[in-house]
């Protein structure tokens, strides 16, 4: 379903732009990956003893797959709210540059900051990638309405997948429930590997996987935080050192 040309009268109505945004959810394979991811999140929440309303609330309010996985698995394995909050905060810093880089695509001279609050909430990796792909095909004056539609469409898909994953984990035989739970590590490992842009990203992924089993033997209660900060800092150090050697 291609979008209408930039000068088409179809773009005159903001409501129509919202609908085109919502419809664009069907135009990307990332929607399918997101659906699988949220099936896994729903199943993980079920098997970590959270309620259905709680995990639907987390999809609506947190709206970031990695943060939800970290929140559910740290709380589920007995961490305190403060420990979970620190781990989630560190994982969420990457949203800051995403918001910063997307907003110039949406602003017009008439745009007030409050018009962009909902767009900022919808920013997560999938919407961010899709904004770069789709917004150049949307007239600037309709981009906010279009992005609201796109974000709402993705949210509906993810809420449905969360509820479905939760229900499947509760009702399927153990083998299939296990298969749905495996979606989470698989989908996140592969999408993180795909997003690696430089040496520091690759090293952070590999060291992060390798250090966790070692740090978890210490039984600190903040294993994920410790191994993540250590592995990430070593990866950054290698990146910095390589830059110096080259210079």
């Amino acid at each position, binding site marked *: 379903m291609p979008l209408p040309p930039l000068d088409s009268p179809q773009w005159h109505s903001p409501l129509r732009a919202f609908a085109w945004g919502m419809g664009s959810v069907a135009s990307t394979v990332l929607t399918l990956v997101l659906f699988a991811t949220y099936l896994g999140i729903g199943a993980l929440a079920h*098997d*970590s003893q*959270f309620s259905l309303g709680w995990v639907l609330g987390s999809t609506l309010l947190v709206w970031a797959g990695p943060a939800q996985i970290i929140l559910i698995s740290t*709380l589920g394995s007995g961490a305190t709210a403060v420990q979970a*909050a620190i781990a989630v905060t560190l994982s969420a810093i990457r949203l800051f540059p*995403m918001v910063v880089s997307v907003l110039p695509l949406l602003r017009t001279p008439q745009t007030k900051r409050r018009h962009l609050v909902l767009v900022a909430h919808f920013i997560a990796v999938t919407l961010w990638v899709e904004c770069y792909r789709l917004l150049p095909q949307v007239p600037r004056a309709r981009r906010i309405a279009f992005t609201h539609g796109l974000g709402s469409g993705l949210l509906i898909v993810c809420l449905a997948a969360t509820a479905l994953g939760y229900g499947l984990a509760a009702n399927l035989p153990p083998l299939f429930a296990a298969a749905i739970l495996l979606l989470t590590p698989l989908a996140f490992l592969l999408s*993180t590997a795909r997003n690696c842009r430089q040496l520091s990203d690759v090293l952070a992924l590999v060291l*992060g996987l390798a250090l*966790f089993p070692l740090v978890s033997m210490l039984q600190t209660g903040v294993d994920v935080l410790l191994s993540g900060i250590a592995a990430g800092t070593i990866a950054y150090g290698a990146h910095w050192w390589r830059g110096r050697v080259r210079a």
Partner: protein
Amino acid sequence: MSEFFGSPQALLILVIAGFLPNEIWRMAGLWFGAGVDEGSELLVWVRAVATAILAGVIAQILLQPPGALASVPDGLRYGAVAAGFAVFILTRRSIFAGVVGGEIVLVAGNWWLG
């Protein structure tokens, strides 16, 4: 209703440990975003730590699996993820093909082991 949402404490933890830590960074981007260089050294470190934390959580789910995943033998769990990664590389980084490949190995392996 309380069964649907769980305890009020659980919802409060969702807001404090889930919603606020994410929303703060989004709103900071909206308010203070102008003038931050996307390639700056600080952001390279931040991205590396965020990636490593997520990698640690992936390792945690595989090593200390929740619920039904714990019923799958350890070797098969690791093997399924390794197979998924191999398919991902062989298909020129298709996430979809990698996920399907890993899932097939898990289900087929478990069925074969009985």
